[in-house]
């Protein structure tokens, strides 16, 4: 039968992929009604076809891109087809373009990348088409990217009803207006406010990363003024420890890493990156606008080229430096600039167009073009000329003309050299093109020796060297004078003795004469050395003069505008340099002469000595010539001199500044939202947008879109003040809610994850907060700020805040690592793991034992022999709350049982009159009897140890680690 053979041919055409799976019925009969279809032929569009197309086809044939005018994201669009006609012929799989494309029937195959569709997948498509391509009428299609919420600039939404100021009461915090509206909408009942002690601990840990002291706690509990909490918040925000606390959060997001490599070899990041860390701390404390911070990190060298206090912020970029591969370095820069500031996964578009967002592969390389020219260097700082010892790691534009190409499939070995990409952002981020203006640099920026930090250090060094020579000369002169006096005296004495006719007891011996002779020759030697010193001093003086003159000339030449007397300055510099050259040549000649004379004075006994003498003579002749030349040069009136330092390009491309300005522009739809989300996450333990680095179309929508936008707009209108954002958040009722109360079953039913914030989330302290709090409570924490990173191996034995210890790949503080400290690669959101290694660290470390002893001693001094008072103090100090009756009983029993340390049940009524209230006032449990109380005013070693154990146990209490 002809039709059969035709089918067979077609079958062959489709190739082996079709052998499996495709039912024979579908192949054998082209008629629309091919008899009863096998039950297996029923294919559900929604569950079997649409996901397949979405996974493999829609990136290029969908809302983002419509290759060949074709979209495959809805059945209607599939039927409509594109430039080559409909994608399918219902009931005719073999005729359908879609099938021909995925089987490669026409000599090309879709999808062009990745594995071909499997036989099963093709069979599924074919059976669906065969069945007439049934699909629901009401089919949702993907959003047009320009309509995606995060790509539309935030607009301040109207506050919900009842949210405005009403007479007689203060304004409702806008956060609560939005949160409460959602709660009402969802039928959720919010928890009551947290207790005051719980709230205080929460806000302390959130804002400064340290718990309140017991005194602070008591003061707050006693403060009945209506704005007591607000005052605390303002105090904490003004506390310099706030900057340290939040700097660590931003160090996570911005991937802070001290340098690391292989042994002493620098391979990643840069030395002295702590200066960027200090900039973060200081910026946060100064409440520098977030927009300004972004600009300084991305383009501090362009916006304030000569101010190293600003330029150090570019440590953000220097951190990505990577020894072995420039592309890896730029990849990191692009990926994390996208994720950290814009919440976009540009990195997905390195090898191919982004699958979800309107970011083409070309867009990726256009973003790269902003960074293409930049390079890293270390400038002199801190009076230290050796930049290995200290300096500022910063970026500058070194390669203004370096072209950016697309790498085919992301492969650096396959650049598309036919096109050079100019810097640009995808239209979804920046609807209009961003103007780039080159930044002419002042001299001190492209010629860093002119910067006072550098030039000054050079002068100090030259002066120090000169002074050292002068001092040596002085000492030598003194020695010579002393020798001469000695010789004179000795000679006079010998002379006198010689004149005596009668032999005296102390008549001069041959030995005395020999000594005199030696002393005289020593004088000769010292005199010779002194001559060298004098010449050396002349050289050092000339060097100082030369350096000063050359610096002045450099300054005159390169500062803007150049000095009027530049000619004179340059000539002066040239003359001083020539004078220095003469002095140096004189010194060399003098040394050569001496060496020659020394050898010439020797008996020319052997060949070796003769040879040495000949060499010395040749050197002397050379030195003569050099000196002659240097002297001859003195006659020159030329103005050419050697500049003092190395130079860099005089202009920066302005690309990064343009990029930074757009990222920080109020019209940018993403920047403010992304920041608000990060700050929110760190106050509530959960972000508003759960995909914190992906606000794109594959990210998750916000739980409270209006709130997010309101805060984003507010942030920008408050001059991007992060402190204002903190303030608004922690003053909200939502933030102040309790985390645990009588279980509200209905709430749990509706919103078990607390997405809508009907209560506060219990969180765990971050690693740094655990360590810092332990030290702080025990009174050990050193609160001095800033400075070079501290050896991470000393973290258990030293007491600085944790953010100051070295944080690099393989060089991290073990204790912090165990508590989920962010790695150096990426730290957008930390995990809160609970693992036994944490228990071991808190139970077993010398560090925790030591701090527990210190704190126990401190509290013991207050509690004296009163065990119950001690327990109360310990709970209030470590956990920020009173002990419950049961806890008190348990702890008393512990102290009593384990170490024979009987409780001093000093009158129950008087104990804890200043306590946090509640439990401690109740009568002591029976185990604690007043007997054996004599002489217990100074706790015995056993008692002290038991108390230290108790405090140590509280450090291990979940309520210590928990932020409730």
């Amino acid at each position: 039968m002809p039709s059969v053979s035709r089918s067979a041919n077609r079958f062959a055409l489709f190739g082996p992929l079709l052998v499996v799976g495709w039912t024979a019925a579908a192949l054998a009969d082209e008629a629309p009604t091919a008899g009863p279809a096998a039950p297996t032929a029923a294919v559900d569009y929604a569950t079997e076809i649409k996901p397949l197309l979405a996974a493999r086809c829609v990136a290029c044939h969908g809302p983002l891109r419509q290759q060949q005018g074709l979209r495959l994201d809805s059945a209607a669009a599939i039927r409509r087809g594109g430039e080559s006609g409909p994608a399918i012929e219902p009931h005719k799989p073999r005729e359908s373009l879609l099938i021909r494309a995925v089987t490669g029937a026409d000599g090309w195959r879709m999808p062009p990348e990745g594995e071909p569709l499997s036989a099963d997948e093709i069979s599924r498509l074919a059976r669906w088409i065969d069945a007439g391509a049934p699909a629901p009428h009401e089919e949702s299609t993907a959003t047009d990217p320009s309509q995606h919420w995060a790509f539309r600039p935030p607009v301040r939404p109207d506050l919900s009803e009842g949210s405005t100021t009403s007479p007689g009461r203060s304004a409702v915090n806008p956060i609560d207006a939005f949160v409460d509206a959602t709660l009402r909408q969802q039928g959720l009942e919010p928890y009551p406010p947290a207790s005051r002690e719980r709230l205080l601990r929460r806000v302390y840990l959130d804002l400064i990363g340290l718990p309140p002291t017991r005194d602070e706690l008591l003061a707050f509990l006693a403060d009945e003024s209506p704005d007591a909490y607000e005052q605390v918040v303002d105090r904490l925000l003004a506390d310099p420890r706030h900057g340290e606390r939040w700097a660590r959060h931003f160090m996570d997001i911005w991937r802070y890493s001290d340098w690391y490599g292989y042994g002493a070899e620098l391979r990643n990041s840069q030395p002295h990156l702590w200066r960027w860390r200090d900039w973060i701390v200081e910026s946060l404390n100064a409440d520098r606008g977030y927009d300004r911070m972004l600009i300084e990190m991305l383009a501090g060298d362009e916006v304030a080229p000569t101010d190293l206090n600003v330029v150090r912020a570019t440590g953000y970029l220097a951190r990505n430096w990577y020894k072995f591969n420039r592309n890896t370095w730029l990849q990191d820069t692009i990926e994390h600039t996208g994720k950290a500031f814009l919440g976009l996964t540009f990195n997905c578009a390195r090898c191919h167009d982004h699958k979800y967002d309107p970011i083409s592969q070309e867009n990726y390389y256009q973003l790269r073009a902003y960074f293409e020219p930049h390079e890293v260097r270390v400038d002199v700082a801190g009076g230290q000329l050796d930049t290995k010892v200290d300096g500022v790691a910063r970026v500058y534009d070194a390669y203004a003309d370096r072209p950016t190409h697309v790498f085919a499939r992301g492969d650096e070995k396959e650049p598309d050299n036919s096109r050079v990409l100019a810097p640009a952002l995808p239209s979804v981020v920046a609807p209009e093109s961003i103007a780039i203006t080159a930044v002419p640099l002042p001299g001190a920026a492209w010629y860093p020796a002119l910067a006072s930090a550098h030039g000054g250090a050079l002068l100090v060094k030259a002066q120090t060297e000169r002074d050292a020579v002068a001092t040596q000369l002085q000492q030598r002169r003194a020695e010579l004078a002393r020798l001469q006096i000695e010789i004179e005296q000795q000679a006079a004495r010998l002379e006198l003795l010689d004149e005596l006719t009668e032999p005296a007891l102390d008549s001069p011996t041959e030995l005395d004469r020999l000594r005199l002779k030696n002393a005289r020759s020593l004088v000769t030697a010292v005199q010779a050395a002194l001559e060298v010193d004098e010449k050396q001093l002349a050289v050092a003086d000339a060097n100082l003069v030369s350096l000063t003159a050359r610096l002045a000339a450099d300054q005159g030449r390169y500062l803007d505008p150049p000095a009027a007397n530049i000619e004179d300055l340059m000539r002066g510099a040239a003359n001083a340099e020539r004078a220095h050259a003469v002095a140096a040549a004189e010194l060399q000649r003098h040394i050569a002469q001496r060496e020659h004379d020394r050898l010439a004075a020797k008996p020319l006994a052997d060949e070796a000595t003769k040879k040495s003498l000949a060499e010395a003579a040749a050197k002397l002749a050379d030195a003569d010539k050099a000196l002659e030349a240097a002297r001859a040069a003195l006659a020159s009136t030329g103005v050419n001199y050697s500049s003092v330092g190395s130079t860099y390009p005089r202009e920066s491309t302005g690309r990064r500044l343009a990029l930074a300005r757009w990222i920080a522009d109020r019209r940018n739809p993403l920047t403010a939202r992304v920041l608000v989300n990060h700050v929110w996450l760190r106050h509530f333990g959960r972000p508003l947008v759960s995909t914190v680095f992906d606000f794109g179309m594959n990210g998750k929508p916000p739980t409270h879109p209006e709130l997010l936008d309101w805060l984003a707009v507010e942030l920008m209108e408050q001059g991007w003040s992060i402190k204002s954002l903190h303030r608004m958040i922690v003053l909200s009722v939502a933030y102040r809610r309790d985390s645990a109360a009588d279980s509200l079953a209905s709430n749990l039913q509706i919103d078990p994850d607390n997405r809508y914030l009907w209560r506060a989330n219990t969180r765990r302290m971050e690693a740094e907060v655990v360590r810092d709090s332990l030290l702080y409570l025990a009174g050990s924490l050193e609160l001095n700020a800033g400075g070079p990173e501290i050896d991470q191996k000393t973290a258990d034995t030293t007491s600085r805040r944790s953010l100051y210890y070295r944080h690099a790949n393989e060089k991290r503080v073990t204790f912090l690592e165990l508590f989920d400290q962010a790695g150096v690669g990426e730290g957008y959101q930390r995990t809160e793991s609970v693992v036994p290694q944490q228990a071991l660290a808190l139970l077993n470390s010398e560090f925790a034992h030591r701090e527990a002893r210190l704190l126990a001693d401190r509290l013991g001094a207050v509690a004296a022999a009163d065990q119950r008072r001690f327990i109360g103090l310990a709970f209030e100090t470590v956990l920020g709350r009173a002990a419950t009756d049961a806890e008190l009983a348990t702890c008393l029993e512990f102290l009593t049982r384990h170490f024979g340390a009987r409780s001093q049940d000093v009158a129950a009524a008087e104990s804890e009159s200043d306590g946090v209230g509640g439990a401690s006032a109740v009568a002591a449990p029976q185990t604690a009897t007043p007997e054996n109380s004599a002489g217990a005013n100074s706790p015995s070693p056993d008692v002290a140890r038991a108390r230290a154990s108790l405090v140590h146990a509280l450090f291990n209490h979940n309520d210590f680690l928990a932020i409730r």
Partner: protein
Amino acid sequence: MKSNSTFSHGAFHPRCTGVSRRTFLADVGMGFTGLALGAMLSRDGVVRADTTQAAQAGQLPTGLPHFAPKAKNVIWLFMVGGTSHVESFDPKPALSQYAGKTIAESPYRDVLESPFLKKNLREFVAGNHKVQPTIFPMQVGYRPRGQCGIEISDWWPHVGGMVDDIAVVRSMWTTDNDHGAQLQFHTGRHALEGQFPTIGSWIHYGLGSLNDDLPQFVVLGTPIADCCGGAGAHGSNYLGPEHQGVQLAVDPKNPLPYALPPRDVSWDEARDKLALVNQLNGLAAIEYPDDAALRARIKSYELAFRMQTAVPEVLNFGDKTASTQSLYGLDRDVTRPFGQQCLAARRLVERGVRFVQLFHGSNGGAGAWDAHGGLKAGHTALCEQVDRPIAALLSDLKRRGMLDETLVVWGSEFGRTPGAQGADGRDHHPYGFSIWLAGAGIRGGVVHGATDELGFHAAENRHYVTDLHATVLDRLGLDPRQLEVPGRKRLEVDFGRPIREVTS
């Protein structure tokens, strides 16, 4: 009968929300939750395919395998620096035959024209490791071993003796011709792309625990150096730190950080203090009955306390019989260090540790196996250090009936060049090299894949390193595609394909 629904949807209804996977696992034992049941079932191998919606939706793994597993545990032996494949598991007589000639002069000059030379290579530093032109003869003899008669070199006599239980794969390739390949061997990604979760961390992430006293993913031996990936080679990257390998020293006195209390704290004192911690946390648990993290913390303290005894116990072989001691070579200086690690590995998997990663030859740099010169002397010594212990591990597992459910993997980041480097060495060689597997249903006495006559390119049945990962996951009943973490797009190459030819 949908028997798995009993613990997927019935008694156990995971509210994974807001609780990390680890939190969740630590909860095991508080009551007979489904997970505990599941973990117990998987201990007994009674686990069926888990196709819960959560798993399909890419949410947190349930801790159960995706399909019936063949293995419960993995021991992963990694030789740091690049073991010579042509002197170990892939004999190449042509090397001796054409020794001294250049590859271009030999009949096999076409290996220099292979597209793989450029296509698959991604150099860390361009030009550092060019093709070594002059053919270097095999430095050791081979002989057929076992019933199967597979040729194994004379540097591996003991492992050779176990070859009937081993499947050798001679056709591996990787893309880094420098020691970043060590990281790549564990993550599947070139070091220039950064750090990614490692094979051990994926398993930790995907499967529940089989023991209550020990970490699930243990690292023995000195991990690779900073140069080549460092802790990244047993790290977990975006899976989170709780899934990274826990490094144990074979030192009962100090096996891991903070393992034991300071010296001046007595055992009783420590235990009493822990009891107080538990009492106080127990009181808090009454106050906060819904706090999963608190419950997890209580469990973590119990596990920590058990680890304080269990870890030193597992690493203390003092009481092992003399025969076991000598089997692993603990009686000889040369074999003792690695023998101790192999014995520790056996004892760890015996107690249910899922993944034990052993490093041999880490030397603070590229690794001891990196035989740029003195290959014969170097490899002779290194093989002697590991050959007996590894064979002992296999035979010990076998005699205890554990080999059936323990997968043993041997590998190195790459092989070594057919051409000579200097007078007596071989350079790095990513184009073709060998690994082997044993146990857990791996077919024994089998060779799979081949390199060309010079051992240059993997020629038949080529496998990138992630195919090995896929094989390991397959043995454990895990489908890597079901482990993908939302927002962390994995590439096709990351998933690899199980090497079916060596599995039964």
